[in-house]
């Protein structure tokens, strides 16, 4: 893992430039340009406000804000894994022509979506302020949660992107798994809605549940995250990252031949 991340660090200039380019390219040529980074979540927010504020009223207070707090980090995770799956298999042009650490490619996807996530945070805070929830001292825990999610997202994206080079249908499977994963993660509902016996199990097998719940704790309920669960998830993510780096190293030799 150390070697893998070291190479990533060596090529940080490439990572940074590709990320920048990705961000710019996404909205290049469109009328609003970079503003889309803000317009997109804003429109999403409007849709949720309409559906859950007007059509189907939820009994969770400030429901739109609640959904938003969980949805933004989820989008970071699911978009990274979803588009990350084909990030290596799609770059035949690069892999067979130049030598560079392939992990830059999935890392670029994760970094791009991380920046989009961070850029949409002010909107979330503004929405919170509108319903009277201002960020307070609990926000201090935010970097820790962010770190846990970064490691977890990176690890999953690494594994999926590496395996997809050989197993091309993985990217389609991943899309469907992500849909299921979304609904077993408490984004649209509060964990209390889950039966007591399942709740524990679910927090153990679904690290995203713990992570999303921690965000909701910080920004919505205004409490500290469940430290033990968060620590466990962080540790688990680091272990997963080590495994991911290993899987990646083992497969790397075949990338240039198989893409």
């Amino acid at each position, binding site marked *: 893992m150390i070697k893998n991340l070291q190479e990533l660090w060596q090529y940080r200039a490439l990572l940074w430039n590709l990320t920048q380019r990705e961000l710019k390219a996404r909205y290049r040529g469109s009328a609003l340009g970079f503003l889309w980074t803000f317009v997109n979540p804003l429109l999403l927010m409007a849709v949720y406000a309409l559906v859950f504020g007007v059509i189907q009223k939820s009994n969770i207070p400030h429901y739109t804000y609640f959904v938003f707090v969980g949805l933004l980090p989820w989008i970071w995770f699911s978009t990274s894994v979803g588009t990350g799956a084909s990030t290596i298999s799609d770059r035949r042009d690069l892999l067979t022509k130049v030598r560079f650490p392939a992990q830059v490619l999935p890392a670029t996807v994760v970094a791009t979506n991380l920046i989009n996530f961070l850029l949409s945070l002010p909107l979330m805070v503004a929405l919170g302020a509108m319903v009277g929830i201002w960020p307070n001292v609990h926000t201090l825990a935010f970097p820790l949660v962010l770190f846990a999610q970064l490691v977890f997202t990176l690890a999953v994206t690494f594994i999926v992107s590496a395996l997809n080079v050989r*197993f091309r249908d993985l990217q389609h499977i991943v899309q469907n798994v992500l849909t299921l994963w979304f609904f077993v993660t408490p984004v649209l509902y509060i964990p209390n809605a889950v039966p007591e016996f399942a709740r524990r199990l679910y927090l153990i097998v679904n690290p995203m549940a713990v992570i999303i719940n921690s965000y909701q704790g910080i920004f919505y309920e205004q409490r500290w995250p469940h430290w033990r669960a968060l620590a466990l998830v962080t540790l688990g993510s680091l272990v997963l990252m080590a495994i991911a780096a290993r899987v990646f190293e083992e497969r790397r030799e075949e990338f240039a031949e198989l893409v």
Partner: protein
Amino acid sequence: MSDAIVLRQVSKTFRKSTIKREYTTVKSEVVRWLRRQKRPEAPSSSIHALRDVSLAVPEGKTYGLVGRNGSGKSTLLKLVTGIYSPTSGTVEVHGRISALLELGAGFHPDFSGRENILVNGIILGMSRKEIRSRVEEIIEFSELGDFIDEPVRTYSSGMYARLAFAVATHVDPEILIIDEILSVGDEHFARKSAAKMEEFRRAGKTTLLVTHDLGTLQRRCDLAAWLDGGEIRASGDPVEVVNAYRTAVAEAEVAAVEQPAQAPRPRAAVQPRSGPPAEAGRRWGSFQSELGPVVLRGPSGPQHVFAPDDLFKLDVGFEHFDGPREAALELTLRTEGGTTVWVSTAELSPAEARGTVQLELPRLGLGDGNYLVDLMLTTDKGQILRDVQRGLHGFAVRAETQTGLIAPVHRWALVSPPGSPPPQGPDPAREPAEPEHPAVSVREGDRDPAL
């Protein structure tokens, strides 16, 4: 002097499924697991791109690779670059390497030339600082002018290649790996590229390059190797390697041309056919007479590959099955493309039943290319076609500097204008790339024109 690149008994095998692009899928793996099948890995399903290749590139030398398509040249470069890893054997590289296997790796069509310089440069191994300090130089070299701030997708292919080459050559590596990109752009740019390469060479950098341009190879390389079917057929002095390669290629071409002659020949006694066939047939006639054997000779015996200055002899045997008679042999020399070069007729008299007629050209005088010899044996003043052989015999002419149909006796000389002092060597401003080769070549004239 130490070696910059060392390959020791390197082999590289690809599984055929990789080549045919049959992807393994989760589904296929599950199905196989359910059927409890083993992974099909018969030795026949693999392709040996390289076998036991050993080669060393000394530091500061330019090393050229030649070979037909699919001979393993590109695989070798990718192994040296580290894109592939060898199936067996070792690859050692000493020094910072920069590989130009494809121009414009990572170019994004929607971004301007300037923006693409940055990412492409980083991919090629430059730091941001290095790129920033060289960006103006790169733009100037590319000669794109104002286009540099336009999106790359609006570029012509020539502009694209120029920009890419400009970035690639401004990376400052110790070892440069190049796959056939010297022939980029128009003549002016090609010369600039060549000059840049020469600059690399003078700076004492090691270069490993693949090219199909044998002239480039002979002029620019210190050492060369010829790859064939994944193995090294010859290596060492570029001139010798290129000659060995040329001879083999020409012989293979001639063999291909002569292939039809190996079909069973009709004998007069068996079944005489008459009249020209529907398609451009190989051989027809009444076969009351037969031509053969046909032997091409050079200065030192039978040969199929000639130089323009070579002595050329053609022996044609003939036999009339119906007794001695007067006949005529018409010879047509044409190019592979069908252009007639020369037609000549020999009267075979006095009447003989069999014999051999010989044509001799003291100097062949043809330019580089493949040629065919058509023969037609007629009797009764050309009324009866007895044996016509079209496209059955051929030979090749290999001339480095003389292309076109003919290679007349000629001499080049440098003539000073009256009154001016004799030239003090080549003008450095005009030909900075090749001081050792003046603009006017006198090499061909060195040969005895009387031959």
